Each structure stands twice: as structure tokens, then as C-alpha cells.
């Protein structure tokens, strides 16, 4: 059963709707049949990623001269949301690649960097990722220990990044590192680093994911793949920097602006995460409406029990609220207005909604919902990370509080 919401009428154009229909069809025909298996085997969806690249899903908000599609943030969100209704791992492939890697290169990169890296990312030729988190620096990203030391004609980077989406499968990364300053007042900068995908054979077979023309950075490689609760078909890995030799021209943005820039990057990323979480909640409700409409106990359909109706109504209400928050944040962004507060609110609300909705979905499926025969247990596992990645729910609350108190970004507790 497909949910239809009039909220769409308020924010979306006909073009957005056509895109929604297209991705919905793709998700139904290509993603739904393989999602369970990919999850069980923790396998990256290379075939589908190749098709998604052909459809242009990896370059939605970038101009055509950068090999992008030239659409807006709402178009990106609609795509992420539709994929997440069926499988969150497919959705984060688009989200992380676009918002966390291609977007900062578009926003802060030079013409040359856009030409070399963004065109390949936007065309979906290779996958990208964003390396911020470190073993000792999670919520407190300013505690970064990855160091970049300037030499005559290059930088030398040492350190390690963990939990990096596309760490193994990707080839282009935006990496943050400390380029100077002292504890408490570190100077952080961003760099563009390249390496070969760890799935060279698969990438060659599907024709996407590798480009011989990119020169790998010596001393930069991916480490072990995480075995995760959810997002199992997404590739999450450590990235290791051992005397990595990074050319001077790979500095992204101005030296020392890394912190400011990744905060901006995360603001956008959070709207994407909100859309992903929203998609999970919608998928969970759709499956639950179908199931409770068929399953009978005590001589009636499950959905005819009043207590069940209360739950269904609450989730539907949450989705309606989440849509407004998310699309509104995107509209602000596309209109060039500040959206930090709204992005955090959307991300916080939708990720908690996804968790609530998917737990309810499992509950209303009873024992069947606890098995892999039905997709709702996967949705429940996939929902949890939305409350952790790109700033935990606690950090979102701190961001919102700081915004409403009118405080500058820097003084959030735990973040320097």
C-alpha cells in the first residue's frame, strides 16, 4: 500500500513527482527483491548502484557543467526518501556520496578540483565518502588527531578515520586533518584524497566504481569493514593514513577553514539523513498497513482493533510532521537562507520517528515481523543509525539549543 500525502502538494513540483514515481518504480522492481539478501550477506549493491549512476542519482544537485543533473535539494531528498522506503542502504549510498563528498567539493573546491573530482562523482563514475570521525573524535570532532604536516610541495597525513561510509568501495574522499594550532584551538583543514576501490573486479564488471585516470594517494588505504546492526549493505570502514603524500593542490577550501566547512557540510547532510529516516518510517507504515489489513485474529483484521488504529494514526501523524520539517529545511537551503536549526530539527525528529515507527511495525507484525521474511525487522535495525550518524540525537539537541539561545557555533560543549 502506497502512502499519499498532501504535504507534497505544498513543496514539490511536477518534476519532483515524476522523479518520485521513477525512483519508486526502480525501488520496487530492482531494490525490493534483493534488499533482504544484501542485508544478510552484508553485500554492497553494485549492480543497482550502476543503474542508479546511469539514471543520474549520484549528481542530482550539481550543475550540468560539473556532470550533474542540475536539480535542487528537494529532488535529492525525494530520491533518498523513496529509496529508503524500500532499503536504507541504497538510500545512504546516494546521501553520503552526494551530501558529504560531492557537495563540499562543489562548495569549497577550485575549478580544477571540481573538474577532476566532482565531474566523476556527479556522473556516478566513482563513489565518494567523507572522513571526519576518528577513534578519539566522534561527537567531539574538534578533538581530531589526524595530522597534516606541510612539506615543500606536498602535505604528509598521518592518522586514522573510522566508520567511514564507502570507505572501501569509494575512490574519492574528503578528509579532515589538523594542520596547526594547539589543543583547544586546533586548526583543521580539509583535503581531497583518492584511492582504488576495494571491489575492483565488481566495479569493472558493472562499469561503475573505478576510474583508472585517478591517481591513488600513496599511504592512503581502507581498513577492516565493520560488521553492523543495520545499513548492512552499506560499506562502512576505517581509513588509514600512513605518511600519505597529498599534493598541495588537494587542499580543499582555505587552510584552517576545515571546521567551519564541515559544519556546513553536515547541515546539508542532516537534511538528507532526515529524508532517509522519513523514508524508513513511511516504508514501515506502508508495510504495516498492508499486513494489519490482511492478518486476522479474534475474527477481525488487526487494523480493526482500536488500539492498533491509535498506533497507525500516531505514525501517520509523525510522518506528516517529519515531511514538513524536512521539506521546509530543504526549501530554506535552496532559497539561500540559513537552515542549521531546521536541518537539525528535521534530522532529530525524523530519526526518532523512524525508530518509533519501525519498532511499532515489528510489534504489529507479531512474530512474523521478527523474522527476515518481512522487511520490518531490517527497517528497525536500519533506523537506529539515523539517531547516531551525522551527529547523534544528543548533539542535534545541543545544536538546536545553541541556535535558539543565539550562541555562535563554536562553543557547543564537547565540540571545540
Amino acid at each position, binding site marked *: 500500500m*502506497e502512502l*499519499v500525502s498532501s504535504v507534497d502538494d505544498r513543496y514539490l513540483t511536477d*518534476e519532483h513527482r*515524476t*522523479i518520485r*514515481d*521513477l525512483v519508486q*518504480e*526502480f525501488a*520496487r522492481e530492482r531494490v525490493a527483491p534483493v534488499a533482504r539478501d544484501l542485508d544478510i550477506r552484508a553485500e554492497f549493491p553494485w549492480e543497482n548502484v550502476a*543503474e542508479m549512476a*546511469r*539514471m*543520474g*542519482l549520484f549528481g*542530482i544537485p550539481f550543475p*550540468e557543467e560539473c556532470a550533474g*543533473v*542540475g*536539480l535542487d535539494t528537494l*529532488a535529492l531528498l525525494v530520491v533518498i526518501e523513496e529509496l529508503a522506503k524500500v532499503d536504507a542502504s541504497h538510500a545512504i549510498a546516494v546521501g553520503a556520496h552526494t551530501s558529504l563528498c560531492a557537495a563540499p567539493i562543489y562548495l569549497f573546491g577550485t575549478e580544477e578540483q571540481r573538474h577532476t573530482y566532482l565531474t566523476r562523482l556527479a556522473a556516478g563514475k566513482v563513489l565518494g565518502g567523507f572522513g571526519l570521525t576518528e577513534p578519539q573524535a566522534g561527537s567531539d570532532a574538534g578533538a581530531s588527531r589526524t595530522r597534516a604536516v606541510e612539506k615543500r610541495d606536498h602535505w604528509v597525513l598521518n592518522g586514522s578515520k573510522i566508520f567511514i561510509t564507502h570507505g572501501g568501495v569509494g575512490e574519492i574522499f574528503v578528509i579532515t586533518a589538523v594542520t596547526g594550532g594547539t589543543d583547544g584551538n586546533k586548526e583543521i583543514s580539509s583535503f581531497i584524497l583518492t584511492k582504488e576501490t576495494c571491489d575492483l573486479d565488481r566495479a569493472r564488471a558493472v562499469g561503475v566504481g573505478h576510474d583508472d585516470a585517478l591517481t591513488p594517494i600513496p599511504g592512503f588505504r581502507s581498513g577492516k569493514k565493520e560488521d553492523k546492526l543495520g545499513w548492512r549493505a552499506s560499506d562502512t570502514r576505517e581509513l588509514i593514513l600512513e605518511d600519505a603524500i597529498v599534493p598541495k593542490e588537494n587542499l580543499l577550501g582555505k587552510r584552517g577553514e576545515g571546521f567551519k566547512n564541515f559544519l556546513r557540510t553536515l547541515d546539508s547532510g542532516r537534511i538528507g539523513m532526515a529524508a532517509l529516516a522519513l523514508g524508513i518510517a513511511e516504508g514501515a507504515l506502508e508495510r504495516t498497513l498492508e499486513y494489519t489489513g490482511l492478518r486476522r485474529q479474534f475474527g477481525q483484521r488487526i487494523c480493526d482493533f482500536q488500539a492498533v488504529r491509535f498506533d497507525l494514526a500516531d505514525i501517520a501523524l509523525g510522518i506528516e510532521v517529519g515531511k514538513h520539517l524536512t521539506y521546509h529545511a530543504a526549501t530554506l537551503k535552496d532559497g539561500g537562507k540559513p537552515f542549521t536549526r531546521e536541518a537539525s530539527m528535521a534530522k532529530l525528529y525524523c530519526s526518532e520517528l523512524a525508530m518509533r515507527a519501525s519498532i511499532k511495525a515489528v510489534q504489529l507484525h507479531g512474530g512474523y515481523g521478527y523474522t527476515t521474511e518481512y522487511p520490518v525487522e531490517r527497517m528497525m535495525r536500519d533506523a537506529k543509525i539515523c539517531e547516531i550518524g551525522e551527529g547523534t540525537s544528543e548533539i542535534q539537541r545541543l545544536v538546536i539549543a545553541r541556535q535558539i539561545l543565539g550562541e555562535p557555533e563554536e562553543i557547543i560543549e564537547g565540540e571545540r
Partner: protein
Amino acid sequence: MNITVCVRRVPDTETRIKIAPDGKGIDPTGVKFVLNPYDEFAVEEALRLKEQAGQGTLTAVTLGGEAAKETLRTVLAMGADQAVLLKGEPSFDGLGTAEILAEYLKDRPLDLVFFGKQAIDDDNMQVPAMVAELLELPCVTVVVELQRKDGVWHAKREVEGGHEIVEFTTPAVIAAQKGLNEPRYPSLKGIMAAKKKPLEEVEVGTAESRVVLERLTPPPERKGPVFIGEGPEAVSELVRRLREEAKVL
């Protein structure tokens, strides 16, 4: 190479269909409409032939109302160059529709005219053959493979229990079957480009119906599962029912 693909707007296979109160059609409220699935194979094959040829024009044609423009936009988004809406009402039987299509096609340069082998809503399977007849062109239906060797076209078509290979020369009419290819999804760029491609409208009026739809009836309600028993003693009863009632053994 000039290729025309005739397409039709039909209800999505995933939609739950309700019969309209007058019993002579479906209630369109809340129904999602899509490009007829068999037409997708036709469009894909036409696109591939054009791409292989490296030149030519691919025109999408449909007979229908204003809403059918959406279907034409889908075909344009997949890669067709231009589209024509023959604005009018299709007939229930194929002939009236075929007459209008043939009338439109007869004076145009044509190498191949593609159709899906049937529309999934009325399942009549008539229009491709009738158009071919009216245009006096060869017609190959239920095509699962299409090749051109030394200027001669070869088509593999599905027949009961096997395949038939036929040869023909163009101009010709082809009706596509599932398996002919794997249709592409339109790209986002394709969707945007489609808005700018030419979409011509020609008023054609209502097609003449020689067969009138009297009444639609829904399929019988599906019966729930039957519990026959447990263990080896239930097997003979199961076999009996499969043989005598379900008639599958």
C-alpha cells in the same frame, strides 16, 4: 531510420482496481497510470536500434486524452525525439483505434512501427495487426528477438511450446513481447530534457467502436487456505484435492 512507437496509458499493475458504479469502466480515483509494460519493451528496442544506427528519429504516438501526455513524456524521458498526441477517445475493440493510428501513420516516412504485444488493461491484442493490415505492411507479433543481417530483418517470436524465426523487410510492424530486452529507466536528465522536446497535438475525435463493453465483473474473492490435516495420513487427501479440485496434477 524512422521509427514510430505506439504506446498506451494503462493503470499500474500494482494498483487495486475498482469497477465504476455504471459497471462499464474502472473508477480512476486514486489509480496510478503508467506506460503499458509491453510498450516499454517496444520503446527500449526502438531506442537501441536508433542508437546502433547512430541516426534517425524516434517518434512516440498515442491516442488518448490530455492525461496521456504524461505517458508520452515518459517515452520522451526514455529517449524518444518527439511525440504526437492523437487527441481523442480510443475504441474498446481495436479496429477504431487502429484506423485512427493508420490514418495518421500512412503518409509518414516509416521504417519500423513498434507496439507492445498487448495493453494490460483490455488485453485485446488487436491493434498492431490491424494497423499493419490497414497500412499493408508485414506484421510480426510476440517478438522476443530482433536482428538485422545483410539488410534482412529476422525476428524470433514466441509460439506455443517453442519459437519461430521469421524474416521480413521494412517497413514493418513489430509487436514486442517481454524478454525482447531489459527496458531502461529514464534518467533524471532525460526527464528534464523531455519537457523541452516537441509534443504535437492532433485532434482526431472518438474512435468508432464495433464492439460495445456491456459490463465488467470483478474476479471471484480469493478463498482462504484450507487445513486438510497433519502427518502422512493427510497426504492422500492432499493429492486427491490437487488432482480433482485444483486440477494441477
